[in-house]
Structure formats: structure tokens, C-alpha cells
């Protein structure tokens, strides 16, 4: 049983080593993930409600405020 982790490791290691077109693809995947998560997500796509409100109650209040802004209420 103890040989399984070693076999699994070698399976992936050799697989990566033998890659040809896969090398370029992994480069593209890493660049893409970096651009998406480290640039776009971090600097341009903050979660609006999580960033601006501390609790779920405040978030719910904000959304209800947006949904009812146009309406008068009878209270």
C-alpha cells in the first residue's frame, strides 16, 4: 500500500515531463489564472456586498433598500 503514493507521484511527474504541446498549454493556463485572479478579480471585481457591508443583515437591508426605493410604504 505504501508504494501507491510513490507510484502516483511518478505517474504525474513522468506525465508532465513527457508533455510536448502540454507545456505551452500549462503556460497559457497559469498566465490566464494569474490575470484572472491576481489582476482582474483583485483590482477590478471586488464583491460589492462583501466589500461594502460587514454583516449579512446589512447586506439584506441594502438589497431591500434597492428593491423598495421607488415605493412608498404604508407604515
Amino acid at each position, binding site marked *: 500500500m505504501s508504494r501507491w503514493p510513490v507510484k502516483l507521484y511518478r*505517474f*504525474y511527474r*513522468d*506525465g*508532465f515531463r*513527457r508533455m510536448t*504541446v*502540454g507545456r*505551452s*498549454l*500549462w503556460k*497559457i*493556463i497559469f498566465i*490566464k*489564472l494569474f*490575470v*484572472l485572479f491576481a489582476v*482582474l*478579480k483583485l483590482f*477590478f*471585481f*471586488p*464583491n*460589492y*456586498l*462583501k466589500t461594502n457591508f460587514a454583516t*449579512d443583515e446589512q*447586506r*439584506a*437591508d441594502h*438589497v*431591500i433598500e*434597492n*428593491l*423598495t*426605493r*421607488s*415605493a*412608498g*410604504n*404604508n*407604515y
Partner: protein
Amino acid sequence: MSEIDLATVNWARAQFILTAMYHWLFVPITLGLSFLCAFFETIYVRTGKEEWRNLTKFWMTLFGINFAIGVATGIILEFQFGTNWSNYSWMVGDIFGAPLAIEGLLAFFLEATFFAVMFFGWDRTSKGFHLFSTWMVAIGSNLSALWILIANGWMQNPVGMVFNPESARFEMNNIMEIFLSPVSIAKFTHTTSSSFVVGALFVIMVSSFYLLKGRHVDMAKKSIIVASIFGLVASCFTAFTGDESAFQNAEVQPMKLAAYEGLYTGERGAGIVALGVLTSGKKVGDGQEPFAFHISIPKGLSLLAKRELNGFVPGIKDLVYGNEAEGIMPVAEKMVKGKAAVADLATFKAASKAGDNVAKSAALVRFNENKQYLGYGYLDTPEETVPPVATTFYSFHVMVYLGSFFILLFALFLWTSFKNNLVQQKWLLGLGLISFFLSLTASEFGWVVAEVGRQPWAIQDMLPVKMATTMIGVGHVQATFFMFFVVFTLLLIAEIRIMLKQIKIGPEETV
């Protein structure tokens, strides 16, 4: 609704359209090609012939390129939910959480695990286990699509939920009703089967190129036979699931059906438009004829929408202004109820904050009476419920024409293959070259029909798109729109370059 900045709403829409349509260039190829790789490998394992092994490895490489470039392009849509569509994302969080979590787990365990075996496992695992892994990748990829399409189906037909006015969230109260919604099932089967057509035409395009160039002839012929059989079955099934989708539209989104059929005035025994040109500038209720020219198949639409020749199919006018005889409530009346629901929601919240439980309970009772019309409370005019008719109509008809053409095309490829004179049919191979791009067009137009046809709703009848948006300022959304445009264009160029290079190299030839 004067506080809503429509420029921000429209740029957020444009950004979502851009990313969804780019993402959808990669997905159908993955869904279709994964099954074709599984078919090719199954033939290899059953026959033991090396040429099928080389052929499988070649198509797997192209599959891998498309998968690698396309992977995570959909995550951008999730970024947008949190930033551009915060109201919407908050309101649907409870419904979408479960299916999207399942999608993540399935994608990770099925695809990631077996993907490695599929690419690294040749000669290092048994033939049977390798084949099993290839099938798991195909099934896993398609099951990933299931969960996101269930979420989309719920937006088109929000079932199995209750709106909680305290938290402003739609909360799941019947998970099976959501998972087994006929709209979601029709959406999944239609989307995946049409993606199989795209995958099959991708194989036919590359193989046609080889046959026209006189290269890898044997491999190309074999690939075309398998892809044509798969494509023919898939395209016939797509027609069947398309029919079911239209029937579901008639049940829960009759306005969408009326828009893509250009049906302004409802009728019994309604004809289906086989060919038509809409009157330019036509608006509901303006008295103009809807069509400058059209050819209809008598009673076809009634049969499609109601499963009976003389069933009543409501038109846009009936749905906007009502039709008492057919029991259709005018939108103006729904708007009154909707505005009452919005006011009662406001009262409920105010009473809740003041700790006045009596007023709160009374407001809740009144809200519950009208809550199914909540979304109508945000509309300014009844005519706002009409989607862009021309876009929906032409997209639908082009999709149907192309879908029908593909059935014929697959049959022709199969016929000439069995007659063993495919190589001589240069015109057919030429059609094979361009048909892949036509299939992507049909696939994208299908998305346009589904999504533009349901405007103005983000969630059918409950939440219009303009109320789903975050008012973060148009400049921010414009800037990120162009960023995505650049990123996606670069990815597309990378995909095309690597794909073309690999196609030029071609498969290993068996000596």
C-alpha cells in the same frame, strides 16, 4: 425607476454577453469532442488496431488544447455576479449555491482526476482503465454543464423556492422541483445535444481539410464516419429537444415564444413561420402588419406550443394588453399588483425595524397576496415586457435553418462515406470546412434566443434585469468590458494558433 442608471445596466449586460458568448465558443467543442474521443478509443480497445489509437490520441490533443484555453473562462461570469449584479447575486445565492457547489466538486473530481489518466496514462494504465477515464472525462464535462443549466433553467422558471422578505433572498424549499424542472431538463438536453453537433462538425472540418489536402486520408475517413453517425443522431435529437424547449416556452415564457415567432395577435390554429421578414420598426399595438413578407405552415405553431391543432397561442398583444376570453391578465394589472407587493415589502421592512410585529404581520399577509407579481412592480410601462422581437425572431430562425441543414449534411457525409466516394466530393468537403463555424453560429444564436427572448427578466416575473444590477458607475463597467475583450481575444488567437499548428502536424501515421 428614475434612480436606475440605464447606461450602467446596459454596459453590465454587454459585458455579460461578451463573456458568455466567448466562453460558449469553447464549451460546446469540449462537450462534443469529449464523447467523440471516448467513441474513438472504444473502437481502438475493441479492435486493437493501432490506427484507431493514433487517431484517438490526435483528437485528444485537440480536445486538450480547447479545454486548456477554455477552462476558467466561465469563472469571469461569477466575478461579474459579485460586482455588477450584486442585488441579483444576493437574491439567488441560496438557490444557486447547491448546484454550483456540486458542479465544482464534479468538475474537480471527475475531470481533474481522470483528465490526468486520459493524457498521461497511455501505456501506463490498462487499456480498460484508460478507456474508463476517457468516458469519465466526457461524462464529467457534460455533468458540469447540467448544474449550471439547472441554475439557468431556474431563472427562466423559478420553482421550488420561496421569497424571504426578511433576508431579500429566494430560498430553496423543494430541491427536487428545481432539479427536475421540465424547463431545466429541456435546456440541458437541448444544449448538450447541440454541443455534440458542434463537436462532430469540428471533427468533420479538420478531416475535410485533410481530405482536400490529400493528407492522413485513412484517418480522416474513419473520423468522418464516426463523427457523422454521432452528429446525425445528435442533430435529430437536437430537433426533438428543441421542440420540447419550445413547448416549455409556451408553458412558462409565452412572451419568448411569441417573440421568436413574430406572433403579435394570438389565435387558434396558429401557423408557424417557415420564412419571414419582419416589418421594420413594428411596435406592439401600433396597428402595423407584423410581417413585410412571410410563409407559414398552417396550424404548426398551435401543434408545437399546445400539442393540438387548434390550441390558442397568445401573441405579444394578448400578453401585454390581456385577453379576457383566454384568461390572460393585462400587464398593467400585474404592474398594479407588483407595485403593491413592492410597497408592502417596504412596509414590512420598516415595521420590522421599528419592532412593530402587528404591522409587520399585516404587511406580510398583503405582500404574500401579490408576491408572484413582484417583478412587475419595477416596470415603467406594460410594453417593457416585450423583448427585442427582431433579434429573437431572426436568431431563432437562423438557428432552426442551420440545425435542419446539419441533419442533411451529416446524412450526406455518411452516404458518401459508405459509397466510398467522399474524397471525390470536393463541394461536400468544402461544406464540411465551413459547417463547423455555422454550428458555432447556431449555438450562439440559440443562446441569444434563450437569453434575449426572456428580457426584461433576470428571474422570470420576479426580478427585471435593471433591478439586478449594482449601481457602480458606467465608467468601471466600460473599462472592464474592454479588458475582457482584450483577454478573450488573446486567448482566442492563442487557441487558433496552437490548434492550427497541431492540425498541421497531424496524427502519427501507422507504418
